[in-house]
C-alpha cells in the first residue's frame, strides 16, 4: 500500500519538495539551537514558554478535532462520514506527531526526555499528557491503517479494530482536556486559572480540526477524483459553525468574569492582549494587533458560515475556512500561551518576540507534520479511488 505514495503528479512532487525544503532549514536551525541552548529563542526568565508550546497546544486541538468525523460514524452509525473517518485519523497522526516534536524542541535537555518514563510522576499533568498523546497516536495509527489496508485488500476490516476505534473517541477528548489542565491548575497565573479552559479548548479544537480537514478535502476534490460528497461537507460545516460559536461564547464568559468582577489579576492579561498595558511611560502591546485581528476574523467567519450561499460554493467556503482556522490559531497558538506570562506573577511586563531561528524551527515542524499528512492522504485517496472505480 505504501507504494501509492511514490507515484504522483508534478504538483504532488513539487509540494513534497517544498515541504522537504522547510524541513531541512528547520533541522539546520534546530542543530544551532541544540548547540547553543534555548537562549537561541526569544524566550526569557519571565516568558518561559513561547511559540513551541503554543503550537503544541493548538495542534493537540487539531488532533482532537479529528474525532468529530470519527464519533458520528462509530457512535451514531452516520454512514456519510464512513469515507472520511480515515482522513480524520490520519490528520490526527500528523498533528500529534507535530505536538511531540514541538515538546522535544522546547526541552532544555532533550536527551533526557525519557526521564518522564524512568521517573513516572503521577502528580504532574505532563505525565498524563505524555500518556494520552502517545496513546492517541497509537490508536489512530491502528484504526486508520487497519481500515485502509482492508479496503486496499478488498476485504471487510477485522472486527477487533473496533475496540480501538471506540476507545479513540473518549481518548480524543482526554488529550485536549489534559492539555488544558497543564494550564488550568497553576496558582498565580490568573489568566489560565479558569474552569472553562478545558471546555474552551475542546470547542476551539472541534472548529479548527474539522476546518483543516474540510480545506484539505476541498483541495483533494479539485485535484483528484476523490470527493467527500456534498452531504458530508455540509455536515462538517455545521459542526465547525457550532463548535466555533461555543468557543466564542466561552471567550465571552471569560471577558464577563474578568471585567464584571473587576479583579485586577483576571483583567490584566486581557488588558494586555486586547488593549495593551502601560508600564511607566511605555505601553506594552505587541500582541494587540494579532488578538484584535483574530477576534474580528473569527466573528466574521462564524457569521459567513451561517449563510447557505457561502457553504454551497467552494470558492467562497475556502477563504472562510482559512479565516476560521487562522483566527483560532492566533487565539490559541499565540495569545493563550504567551498571554499567561504577561504580566508575570510579580506584575512586571516582559514582552516576547520569537527569533528568526525559532520561527524557522516552528515552520520545519509544521512542514514535517504536513509531509506526514500529505503521504497518508495520498495513499488513502489512491486506495479509495482505486476501489470506487
Amino acid at each position, binding site marked *: 500500500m505504501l507504494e501509492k505514495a511514490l507515484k504522483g503528479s508534478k504538483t504532488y512532487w513539487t509540494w513534497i519538495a517544498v515541504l522537504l525544503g522547510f524541513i531541512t532549514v528547520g533541522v539546520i536551525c534546530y542543530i544551532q539551537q541544540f548547540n547553543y541552548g534555548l537562549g537561541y529563542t526569544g524566550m526569557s526568565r519571565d516568558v518561559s514558554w513561547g511559540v513551541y508550546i503554543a503550537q503544541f497546544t493548538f495542534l493537540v486541538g487539531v488532533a482532537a478535532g479529528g474525532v468529530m468525523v470519527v464519533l458520528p460514524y462509530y457512535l451514531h452509525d452516520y454512514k456519510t462520514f464512513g469515507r472520511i473517518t480515515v482522513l480524520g485519523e490520519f490528520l490526527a497522526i500528523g498533528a500529534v506527531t507535530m505536538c511531540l516534536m514541538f515538546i522535544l524542541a522546547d526541552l532544555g535537555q*532533550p536527551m533526557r526526555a525519557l526521564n*518522564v518514563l524512568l521517573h513516572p510522576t503521577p502528580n504532574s499533568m505532563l505525565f498524563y499528557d505524555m500518556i494520552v498523546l502517545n496513546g492517541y497516536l497509537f490508536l489512530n495509527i491502528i484504526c486508520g491503517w487497519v481500515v485502509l489496508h482492508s479496503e486496499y485488500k478488498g476485504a471487510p476490516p477485522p472486527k477487533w479494530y473496533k475496540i480501538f476505534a471506540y476507545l479513540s473517541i473518549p481518548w480524543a477528548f482526554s488529550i485536549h482536556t489534559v492539555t488544558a489542565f497543564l494550564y488550568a491548575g497553576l496558582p*498565580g497565573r490568573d489568566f489560565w486559572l479558569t474552569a472553562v479552559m478545558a471546555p474552551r479548548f475542546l470547542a476551539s479544537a472541534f472548529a479548527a480540526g474539522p476546518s483543516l480537514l474540510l480545506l484539505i478535502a476541498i483541495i483533494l476534490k479539485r485535484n483528484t477524483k476523490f470527493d467527500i460528497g456534498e452531504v458530508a461537507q455540509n455536515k462538517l460545516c455545521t459542526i465547525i459553525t457550532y463548535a466555533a460559536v461555543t468557543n466564542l461564547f466561552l471567550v465571552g464568559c471569560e471577558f464577563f468574569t474578568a471585567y464584571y468582577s473587576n479583579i485586577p489579576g483576571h483583567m490584566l492579561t486581557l488588558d494586555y492582549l486586547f488593549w495593551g498595558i502601560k508600564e511607566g511611560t511605555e505601553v506594552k502591546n505587541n500582541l494587540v494587533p494579532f488578538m484584535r485581528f483574530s477576534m474580528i476574523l473569527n466573528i466574521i467567519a462564524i457569521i459567513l458560515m451561517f449563510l447557505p450561499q457561502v457553504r454551497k460554493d467552494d470558492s467562497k467556503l475556502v477563504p472562510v475556512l482559512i479565516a476560521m482556522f487562522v483566527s483560532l490559531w492566533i487565539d490559541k497558538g499565540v495569545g493563550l500561551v504567551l498571554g499567561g506570562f504577561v504580566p508575570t506573577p*510579580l506584575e512586571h511586563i516582559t514582552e516576547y518576540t520569537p527569533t528568526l531561528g525559532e520561527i524557522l524551527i516552528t515552520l520545519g515542524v509544521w512542514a514535517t507534520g504536513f509531509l506526514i499528512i500529505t503521504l497518508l492522504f495520498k495513499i488513502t485517496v489512491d486506495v479509495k479511488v482505486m476501489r470506487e472505480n
Partner: protein
Amino acid sequence: MDMKRRDFLKIAGLTAIAGIGAPTAFSRLLKGEVDGGAAYASGGEGAAADSNRVRLGMVIDVKKFNQYKGLAQKCIDACHQIHNVPDYGNKKDEIKWLWQERYENAFPEHSHYRRNEELEKMYFLVSCNHCDNPPCVRACPTQATFKMKNGIVAMDYHRCIGCRFCMAACPYGARSFNWRDPRGRSADGRPFIAHVNPDFPTRMRGVVEKCNFCVERLAEGLPPKCVEVASPVKAMIFGDLNDPNSEISRILRSRFTIQRKPALGTHPSLFYLI
C-alpha cells in the same frame, strides 16, 4: 499502635499522591498532635506532613534591610558567588536566586490607594519560598524538583529535562532557566561566572535552578549564606518553624509578619517583618 500509624500514613500518603492532600493534615488533627493553627503551617504533601519533623523557615526583617543600605545587595552577591550563579549582563538570560523587589511587585495583591510612603520606597528581598505545599513540585514530571524532609524544596540538576513547567507553576517567579551555557564566556571573553566556587557544582545549559536554602551549608552546620551576611544586624532569622523554642518561632509568635500570596495555599516558609 506503631504499625497502625504507619499504615495510616501510607494510606494518607497515597491519597495525597492522588491529589487529595487534606487527609494527611486531617490524620494529624485526629491524633491530636497539633492544633489547628500549626496544621496550617505544615499541611504539605505526602509523608512529610508531620509537625514532629523539622520545617526550616526564614524571617526577613525589612526595616533592618532598609536601615542598612547595601546589606541586601551584599547578601545577594554572597549567595550568587558561592552558588556559581552566572551573570550574563542581560535580562533575557538572567539567573537569580535572591533579589530585590518593590512592595507592589513582591506583594501585588496588597496594592491599594495611598500606601505608606516609607513602604513605597522599600525594597524586599525575595527568593524561593520553600513552600510547604509547592506547586512546582506538583508540576515537575520527573521529580527533579522535590521536597526534602526538612521542608527545603530542592532541585536535582541532573534529572531536570528543562520543560520549565515548574517556572510556569511557581507563583513567586523564583525559578530561573539556563538559557545558555553558564560555564561559557561572553563575546568579549568575560566568563559568565567570575570566580568559580569549587565547593558547589556549576550547572549546565537547559536546566532550571533556584535558591536551595543553602542545603550544602546546612549539612556542615552552617546557616544559609544570606543569613550569615545579615547576622551582624540580625536582619534575617533562620530556623525550625516546628520547634516552639526556636528563635524564629518566638518571633513569629510575638511579632506581626506577612507572607507573599498566602491566599494561594502554598504555605510559604518565608516571612516578612515590616
